[in-house]
Every structure is written in C-alpha cells, then in structure tokens.
C-alpha cells in the first residue's frame, strides 16, 4: 500500500527530531539516595584507564563482590585517560552516566552541582570512619553540604634528581635542595655552570606549587581565588629569575608532564617530580640515569606535601542505589585498597592502612625507600588543587604565568589577571 505524502513527512520529521529529543541534559531523575535496601541488580562500574594493566585485579574484585551479593551483576567499563572528562561530560549530558564512576575531586565538583553525584554523608555516612579524614574530605565541594565520592587511592611522590648533573655543576649530589631558597640558588648555579644547557626545572609553577609555597589559594567560603597575594607574587618573581637564567627550561611554557619527564630522562633537566612508579621506568628506559638517580622529598614551605586523590562516585540517578553504594564501598574498602597497593605504587586512603609494615619497613631497595617515605608524608599531605579549579582555570593561570616569565607582564599583574579570570570562570560555573 502506498504511503501518503503526509505520513511520510511525519515519519521523516519524527526521525529527524529523534536525536534532538535524545540529547536532553542530564537524566530525568528517578534515583534514590536511600542505600539501605537489598543489594541487587545490574550496575555499571567505570574506571579511568586501568584495564590495560589491572584487568585481573578488577575481575577478581567484581567476582568477589558478586559472590558476596549473589543477586548482583557488575558490568565493568574502562575509558582511556585521554579525554576522560569529556567522556563523563557526554555521559552526564546524555543521561548515560554509569552507576559507579572513578573520579578525581575536580571532576566530582561539577557533577555534584548538577545533582549527579550521590551525597555519601546521607547515603553512606556509616563508612566515613573507615577512611582517613583528609581523604574523606577531599570530595567535598565548597558551598555545598555533603561528600560526593568515596576516597580511593592516594599518590604522592618525591623529587628525583640527576646526581651526575649536580656533580658537573659543582653541587654536592648528596645534598639536594630542601627548601625553596636552596632550590632556586642551586638551579641558578646549575644554569651558570652549564652555560644554560641544563635546566633544573622543566615546569612552570602550577596551582599546587603556589599551595606548597604557602600561598592561600581560595577564601574560606570557596567563592574567590586569592593566590595573587604578596607570597604568590614572590614565587612567580623567583621563577622569572630562573627562566631568564635558563634554570627553568625554555620549553617550560609549553611543557606537559610527559614532555618534562622525557627531558629528565634525557638529561636536559636535572630535577623532576615523580612517584614510585617512575623508578621502574628509569630502570628500563634510562639505565644510566637510574645509576645516578637521587631521591629527595617534595619541597614545601607548609610542612605538608601535595597528594593526588582518586575517588569512586555513585551516580545520584542510579536505579540501583544500594548495589551501587555497596560496590563503591567494596572497591575502596581497606582490604581491596591494600591488595591494589601491593600490585602498583599507590597508597590506600583507608584509616590505619599506612601503618602496616608494607608501608613502614624498608628492605634496602630504592622502591621501598620511596614507598615508606611517601606513606609517611601522606599522613599529613594535602590535595592543594582546589576542587573548583577547572581545566579552563588551569589554562588561564598557565597563560598568565607564561606572560610574567616572558616579561610581558609583571608577576603582580599576571597573578591579578589570573585571579580575575579564574573568579569570572568560577561565577560562570554557578
């Protein structure tokens, strides 16, 4: 039977508009904050670039969970590191965010504001005492009540340095810098002795560096940035001196953590921050560097080193709140975190875990030395990056810092501009 022209037009328009209706923002609600029901049903768990190296570990964790809760089924998806935030954005906007999601604090903040992250202070308050207080607080958002993700693994790391480059520059390889003053002096000496061919640092200062230097980053209310104070200006002025003397690598203005890591591997820079993970990398990729590797503590003026926190968030729109909360807790509980830490150089965020012999006893190797030192420093470590500090803000700060280092703006002007730009972005975020 022939289709009438009107019917055809209606079908065509409907088909054309289908994608439009499918692209609404966020889910339609329906999730419950009550996690007290029966743990059952199928949930999806998303990790952040972990399948390649830890497939067996996660399959074991999932199998153990499904054994404990036989009425559940966990579907595991892993996303590559590149574009992870964009993937979450697309899922969040399309209403397809998985039930349990691996996040970092800066990813949690916008999700919590959009009502997509479950408030664990309401849904899972009983678990709070199992975690280090600082780690539990790391997924709280200024201006909002609640905690929006279970803390997962922590990481921090020492400062690696190239002993042979120190020696060539007339510096004592056994006395690496311990304070910012020593760091800047030794960096200038290194540049002078090598005629600017070897820089000491490869990265421009980031928000973490300002934090470690003791600069107040935000006001107490979390409504405005404050890193343009006298101390912030002082730090930037010192970096400007390093840049002019080539003690800061000339390519630092466009460097990424990967590119600066490569520069350290090739001996173009003398110092680089890293983690216990990097030691194996040095051993494999740069054996001559590994023989000359020096390890010292992160430099900080506050007495607290910087730490990175990973979290596991529960989607507030999930239809399986009890199962999602139970699984998020299961993945991040003490036993699972300890087991994960024994496979890879990360540190558990659960209370008491860092006091276990694995994190307190050295066996004479560099690996255990770095691990024990890092575990010790983590007990008082701080995640300096404000949770509200978005990627756009990082770029704004980086660009203004670059202008100061190039001499296009004074350090004070640059930081004032950066703070204004970040405050504007903060207001736009709502």
């Amino acid at each position, binding site marked *: 039977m022939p289709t009438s022209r009107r019917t055809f037009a209606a079908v065509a328009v409907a088909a054309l508009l289908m994608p439009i209706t499918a692209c609404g923002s966020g889910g339609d609600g329906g999730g419950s904050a009550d996690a007290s029901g029966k743990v059952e049903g199928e949930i999806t768990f998303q990790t952040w670039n972990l399948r390649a190296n830890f497939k067996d570990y996660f399959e074991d964790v999932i199998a153990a969970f499904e054994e404990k809760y036989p009425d559940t089924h966990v579907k595991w998806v892993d996303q590559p590191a590149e574009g992870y935030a964009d993937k979450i*954005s697309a899922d969040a906007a399309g209403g397809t965010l998985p039930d349990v999601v691996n996040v970092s604090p800066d990813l949690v903040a916008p999700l919590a504001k959009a009502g997509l992250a479950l408030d664990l202070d309401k849904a899972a308050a009983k678990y709070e005492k199992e975690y280090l207080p600082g780690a539990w607080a790391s997924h709280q958002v200024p201006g909002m009540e609640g905690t929006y993700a279970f803390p997962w693994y922590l990481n921090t790391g020492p400062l690696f340095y190239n002993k042979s480059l120190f020696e060539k520059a007339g510096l004592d390889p056994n006395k690496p810098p311990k304070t910012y003053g020593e760091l800047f002096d030794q960096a200038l000496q290194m540049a002078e002795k090598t005629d600017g061919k070897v820089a000491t640092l490869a990265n421009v200062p980031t928000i973490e560096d300002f934090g470690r230097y003791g600069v107040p980053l935000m006001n107490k209310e979390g409504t405005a940035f404050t890193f343009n104070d006298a101390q912030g200006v002082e730090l930037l002025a010192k970096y400007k001196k390093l840049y002019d003397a080539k003690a800061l690598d000339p390519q630092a203005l466009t460097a990424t953590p990967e590119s600066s890591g490569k520069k350290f591997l090739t001996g173009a820079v003398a110092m680089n921050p890293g983690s216990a993970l990097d030691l194996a990398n040095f051993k494999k990729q740069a054996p001559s560097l590994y023989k000359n590797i020096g390890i010292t503590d992160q430099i900080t003026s506050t007495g607290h080193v910087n730490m990175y926190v990973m979290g596991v968030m529960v989607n507030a729109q999930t239809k399986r709140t009890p199962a999602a909360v139970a699984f998020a807790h299961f993945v991040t509980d003490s036993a699972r975190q300890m087991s994960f830490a024994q496979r890879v150089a990360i540190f558990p965020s659960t209370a008491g875990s860092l006091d276990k012999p694995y994190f307190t006893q050295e066996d004479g190797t560099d690996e255990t030395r770095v691990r024990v030192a890092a575990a010790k420093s983590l007990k008082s470590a701080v995640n300096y990056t404000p949770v509200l500090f978005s990627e756009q803000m990082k770029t704004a700060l980086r660009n203004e810092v670059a202008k100061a280092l190039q001499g296009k703006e004074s350090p004070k002007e640059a930081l004032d501009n950066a703070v204004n730009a970040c405050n504007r972005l903060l207001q736009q975020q709502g």
Partner: protein
Amino acid sequence: MATTSTVSRVRRQLPTSPWLFAAPGLLITGAFILYPFVSTLINSFTDRRTLVPGEFVGLANFRELLHDDMFWIGLRNSTLYVLGVVPALILLPLLLALLVQKAIPGITFFRSAFYTPVVASIVVVGLIWVWLLDDRGLVNAVLETVGVGRIGFLSDQWLLLLSAMAVTVWKGLGYYMIIYLAALGNVPRELHEAAAVDGAGAIRRFVSVTVPAVRSTMVLVGALSSVAAFKVFSEVYLLAGPSGGPAGEDTTLVMLVQRTGTGLTGRVGYASAISVVVFVVTVALMLLVLRADRREES
C-alpha cells in the same frame, strides 16, 4: 510492456519513492550535520554549559567575544595560517606534480613517497616533528654542529606557528599533488610544443601554458586549503601543546572552541558563538576565492 494499472500504481508511488531512497542519506545528514549546526546556532545565543541547559542571552556571547583577548589571538593565528599555508599549498604541489608527471622508470616510487604523509596519522606526524624540532632534536643538533646554534622552534610563539604551518604544508603536498596531476594530464601537449617552437623557455611555458591550463584547479586547491587552514587544530595542538603555545599565543579559533566548550565545566554557549564565527569566516573565504576566480575569468 507495462499495463495501464501498473503505470498508475507507479505514478501513485512516485512522490514517495525518491524520498524513501534519499531517506538514509537525509537522516544521516540531518543527525550529524543539520542538527548539530542548528543546535550550535541556537546554543550561541544561550549561556548553556555542559551540565546546565542555559538560558537565552541574546547577543551577549558575541559581545563578549569582542572583548576576549584570546578570541582575537585565535582569529589572528587562524588568519595568519591561511595566509601562510594557502599560497604554499597552491604552488608547491603544482611544482611537485610537474616533477613527477613525466613517465620515467621509478617515478611511481616518488609519487608514492610524496603521498605517504597524507595517509600518515597526524598524531604520529606531529610527534615526529616535535622530536625533530625540539631544543635537543635532530634539527637543532644539526644547526649546532654547523655553528648556527639552537633555535627555539617550539618555545617561540612565531616559530611555533611557522613550524605548524610547515607540517600542514608537508602533509598536504601529496594530496594536492594528486589533484594537480589529474589536471596536468588534460593539458594538451601541443600547447607546450607550440610555445617551445615560439622560443618559450621552461619558466615562460609554466607561466603562459601550464598555469592558465590548471587555473580552475588552482582555485579549487585554494578554496579547499583555505577552509582547512582556517579550521586548523591538530598541527598546532600537537606542536604547541594543549595550552596553545607560550601564554596561549599560538591558539587558533578551533583550539579555543575545544578549550572553552569541552569538559564538565565547558561553556557550550560561548564556544558555539566562536564556532558560528568560524563558520561565517569559512563561508566568506570560499565566496572570496570564487569571486576572485570569476573576476579573473571575466
């Protein structure tokens, strides 16, 4: 032979049949081109963010653009990119095509070699060029050996932009060379022979015979390469990094769209406004090239 009833049935079906055949294409065009285009246009008049639908703000985004230094930097760089890349991509592939046009033994190898960068992944190409142009890369090692000293290809904003242009030209040569090869095949040999008899040298023959014969192809290459150059992203992103070079001074408009509009805190409305500007300039570029061509013809 068709009966009367068959003819009338076909006639009855005719109005819908073409639409049914076109439906898959229309659906794909609608979903992946028309809808995103209209959506971007609508978003450009809103303050929409990634996770917040946003409200109508009129021309506020466009007014903000006028006062956004980064927008002007992006516009400057994208325009410079067109000015730097397009002439090179009109002329160099033509010369290359003339070189490999002759049917001599082994010429296929050279044609393939010149075409290889076209099929190579832009990420791989970018990484190779970063390695070559790095402060301690191969190019600087050679320059240092011959006494020139190191040049900051990847740390100076202008050299960075020039380096990215070089990558674009290098990668595009083979593609446009193939287009020119096809056009050169249609140039009558007699014209060259007649010009040679009249005493024209190689350069004269190139200017008076080859160029007029492939002029319409040159316009096509100009139009294609100018649109691609204005929308450049990958080359600059790979060489200058996500921040767009020192202090963001190498940011192009499309990089600005990506940086502003993506992520969980992306300003979709504002990024859409930049996209609309990119679209308008791109269309203007095409019209400019076509108009120049018509004027030349008349």
